[in-house]
């Protein structure tokens, strides 16, 4: 527990330092919550929930609450690269006014092309101003991959015609931390699928600083907000797995927490969409579910205010939070079977394999991968 005590002290010191900065919002967070009919008690409950989500002991919930209140001391710069805006949309479509969205609202959003009022020359001025004024302090979020072929000329942004590559490198220099939001920024995503005509890469491949990768197409708003909270609290990166994804969110396989796991164990499979098994909620492995190879918290967190997630809607997981999933996980409606994944051998899971008989299952795929998870970054 010593490490937790030390971490707690670290968090306290960090928040004391943040408090010295001027608030960037007129209202305190608590006033804002009150306005939306959210009581202090609800807020403390939320803090405890986030503490659990981040895999921290309960006493940390005081720190979480404090960090949320100090979110307006942290400038956030959000860049759009080779993307489809789905990740921004995921955040905008988050729960109806709930704490996550209000806290995002409380963070000091300095630059975000989809939401900001300014345009053109004036928008570019805002970006330059923010990079200069908050040098060394701002959080940098990147949505989309970085095209690198042809000197990056497949993407230019702004009146000065800078390439996306130049802009990201420049913005990374003064960032206190960098978050790749979504599979494109993290691993290159759809434009990096074979034959990757634009030389699209993840952010971590073009900057020389540590980057937190939030896989997912798009990632859920919970994973985005939780990551922001951790940074505000400790000013450093959380424990990450071998692909630099926060372990608290990407530590378990979709398959392990799936609501249809019992069906898998019982050997009850959907053989064809719309059949009897589909109506009964049988396991989707045979129609292509990639849950056994995918690390994310979709089954527990779901999407859109907990409305649904792909498996509930009768379609298998497609593995969208994994590197190279467009190539490695295709065909999306056929079982993967045994093959190399991320260069690791996909070994069969005896439980299902026995019942499946002829269908070879490659489950437990890179469960081994989590063993290599990195220790806490210092």
């Amino acid at each position: 527990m010593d490490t937790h005590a030390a971490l707690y002290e670290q968090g306290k010191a960090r928040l004391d330092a943040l408090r010295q900065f001027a608030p960037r919002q007129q209202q305190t967070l608590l006033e804002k919550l009150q306005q939306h009919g959210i009581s202090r008690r609800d807020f403390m409950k939320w803090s405890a929930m986030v503490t659990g989500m981040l895999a921290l002991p309960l006493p940390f919930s005081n720190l979480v609450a404090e960090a949320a209140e100090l979110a307006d001391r942290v400038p956030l710069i959000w860049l759009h690269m080779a993307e489809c805006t789905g990740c921004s949309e995921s955040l905008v479509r988050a729960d109806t006014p709930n704490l996550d969205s209000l806290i995002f609202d409380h963070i000091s959003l300095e630059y975000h092309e989809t939401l900001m009022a300014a345009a053109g020359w004036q928008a570019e001025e805002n970006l330059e101003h923010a990079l200069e004024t908050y040098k060394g302090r701002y959080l940098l979020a990147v949505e989309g991959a970085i095209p690198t072929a042809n000197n990056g000329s497949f993407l230019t942004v702004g009146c000065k015609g800078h390439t996306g590559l130049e802009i990201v490198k420049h913005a990374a220099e003064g960032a206190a931390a960098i978050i790749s939001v979504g599979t494109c920024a993290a691993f290159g995503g759809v434009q990096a699928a074979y034959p990757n005509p634009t030389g699209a890469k993840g952010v971590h491949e073009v900057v020389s600083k540590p980057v937190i990768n939030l896989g997912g197409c798009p990632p859920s708003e919970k994973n985005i907000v939780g990551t922001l909270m951790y940074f505000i609290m400790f000013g450093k990166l959380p424990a990450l797995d071998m692909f630099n994804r926060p372990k608290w969110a990407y530590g378990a396989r979709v398959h392990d927490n799936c609501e249809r796991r019992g069906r898998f164990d019982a050997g009850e499979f959907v053989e064809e969409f719309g059949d009897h098994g589909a109506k009964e909620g049988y396991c989707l492995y045979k129609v292509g579910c990639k849950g056994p190879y995918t690390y994310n918290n979709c089954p527990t967190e779901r999407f859109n205010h907990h409305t649904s997630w792909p498996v509930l809607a009768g379609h298998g997981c497609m593995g969208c939070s994994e590197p190279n999933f467009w190539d490695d996980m295709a065909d999306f409606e056929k079982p993967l079977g045994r093959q190399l994944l991320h260069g690791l051998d996909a070994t069969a899971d005896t439980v299902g394999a026995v019942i499946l008989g002829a269908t070879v299952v490659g489950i437990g795929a890179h469960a081994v991968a989590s063993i290599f998870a990195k220790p806490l970054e210092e």
Partner: protein
Amino acid sequence: MSKRVVIDPITRIEGHLRIEVEVDENNVINKAWSSSTLWRGIEVILKGRTPMDVGLIVQRICGVCTYSHYRCGTEAVENALGIQIPLNAKYLRSLMLTSLFMHDHIVHFYHLHGLDWVDVVSALSADPAKAAQIALKYTDKPIAAGEGELRAVQERVKGFVETGKLGPFANAYWGNGTYKFTPEQNLIALSHYLKALEVQRVAAEMLAIFGGKSPHPQSLVVGGVTSVRDMLSPARLQEWKQKHEIVTDFILRAYQADIVMAAEAFGTEPSVLGGVNVKNFMATNDFVLANGEYLFDQGVIMNGDLAGVSDINPDLIAEDVSHAWYNADAPQHPYDGTTIPNYTGFVERDTVYGKLPTLDGDGKYSWVKSPRYQGEPVEVGPLSCLLVSYARGNKVVVDAVNALLARTGLPVEALFTTLGRTAARMLQTVIVAQEGLKTFDALLTNIQSDETTYVKPHIDPSKEYVGHAMMEAPRGMLSHWIRIKNGVIENYQAVVPTTWNAGPVDANGKIGPYEASLIGLKLEDPTKPLEVIRIIHSFDPCMACSVHVMDFKGQALSEFRVSPNGQ
């Protein structure tokens, strides 16, 4: 002495768009160039993959109209393979489209387009009591426009402004003379801006009920829809209907009222009374009602002649790349196109902001191609959709359009303006929301006796298949074209709404809707070109969508290369 104005990034859109204009000594625009500055090459990536994965891949073209490409790609494959999907699957797909339109259009008007009409700073000097009275003028049951609520909104925004820390509202064009709302009207619209943030989430949940999530739903497959459990659950169906009511309520009591208010306030503002200079419009039929009928009609209108609407002939579509960053000898039909990138960069010249790299208008200057119908540019989108149905005498549309014209006292010509384009999007939202219930009821009736949602597709690897699908996406007519050989994708092409609207000039010197819409526009201050942004936003740009068009017919991937200087 003409001056060049560069606007990049155009914010509050999907993707990366650069607009440049040239103004004369009176600040009137005489030339305009529209350029997309990102190419991702998704079409190239599709080649050689299984047609069953098309939908999920092309969906990633865009996360805003997220469901459109998913459905269109899936249906192009179904068309190629000759699959007739079950009636339930048609209804579910239509209901998902209804959900998407309700979401997309609300977000577009309030969060992307709204700040072109609403001066946030002006709202600070409004009298909330008076504003509450004014709100009653545009609807007898306003939402989020009571005195107390308006006062709270005002105080919230005041807080922003007094600290001088405007965050996302910083450095915009507040105070520009072409903002026409009174402070009270600005306050009402600002209150709806905030309310719409809540309502759009509910609309996104509607899409997630049958789609699994939003953005990027995951319940369509070649042959049907997978969310059979949701379809058969009375609780789930009820949930959709309840959310539909909440969102429809906002559309009628806020969105519709705000457009009526805008028509009154901006009815004499010259900068929004032009903007429709390509008088050709195209739309396809979509939204399945009971009995296999469609809510909207298909057709083409040329030269603004509503009396002469004709059927779409897909063979007359071709694409020109003479000014796009690709190489090709002549305009090509979607089945036979090529996409060979050829980036030629910018040209340095003087602008109102000093020396800058600018677009080479005489050469190539965009990643968007220029689609043409019979060699003519065409506008697509909600305005085109309503005009085609209006011209066809579609009763639902005719009644809705006439009611709005009567309500605002505007002549039918007012439709052919930036204001008309924005109003058409609202009307389309109202119609889709109200008529969507007919589809919902048809589904309820059908599942009493039929639970089928899927037919298994079959591909014969020794055969070659060709197919396409057309649909009405939130930004207009969308078509996907596919060729399948040896059981995999041989080539693929998407002709996207924003491509029709945003493409560069063609080989014959004909300009597309974006560029044409800006000619003759007078700017109050060329260094703060709000008027340009307002007009371009009225099209609801979606740049990630627009940049693709391809086909690799007879071209090996090894030949695919990019030359930095166009040699």
